[in-house]
């Protein structure tokens, strides 16, 4: 994220939210192993690691709402759309491959990872293009 006030606020929110995710994932796995809950308890426990990830999505949304630099915001939104395109393409194709029995089942949370990967790759390409075109200073 850029070093704008909104970018700094994003980092301040992102780090504790991701830390919460790591703790939630670890705790959820350990509790599931130790107590082997069933029914509603298992549903609730399985949902726990998803909460911080949903929190990260909220943190990203807050950044977009708070970023005052319109060019940087536009560049990030374009990168996010590239990520969205990648995620939808891969998950759609994978779904059909899976249905035909030629691809293994993949957990749905990989969609978010794919989106992040596409977003990050697009950001790198845009930054590289900017650098290659020179600063013009």
């Amino acid at each position, binding site marked *: 994220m*850029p070093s704008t006030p909104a970018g700094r606020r994003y980092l301040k929110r992102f780090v504790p939210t991701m830390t919460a995710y790591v703790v939630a994932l670890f705790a959820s796995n350990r509790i599931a192993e130790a107590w082997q809950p069933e029914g509603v308890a298992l549903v609730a426990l399985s949902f726990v690691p998803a909460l911080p990830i949903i929190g990260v999505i909220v943190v990203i949304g807050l950044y977009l709402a708070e970023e005052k630099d*319109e*060019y940087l915001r*536009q560049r990030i939104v374009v990168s996010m759309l590239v990520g969205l395109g990648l995620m939808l393409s891969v998950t759609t194709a994978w779904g059909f491959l899976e249905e035909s029995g030629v691809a293994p089942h993949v957990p749905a949370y990989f969609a978010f990872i794919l989106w992040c990967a596409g977003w990050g790759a697009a950001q790198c390409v845009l930054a590289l293009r*900017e650098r290659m075109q020179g*600063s013009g*200073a």
Partner: protein
Amino acid sequence: MKNALRALRAERGWSQQDLAERLEVSRQSVNAIETGRYDPSLPLAFKIADLFGLTIEAIFTNPAKEADQ
């Protein structure tokens, strides 16, 4: 969109960073506008025009008129 931002900035001896600080945007934004990779919103275009004491048309070339030339 073609524009005279770089020339106007050079006349005043400002760096891209100087102009960015005056406009309260990032240096990347100034660079993207100068090189024509990004067209600013109307509020930002007015802010640029106000800073240089010019009209928007005096800084940015109308793309429709540019095609006629």
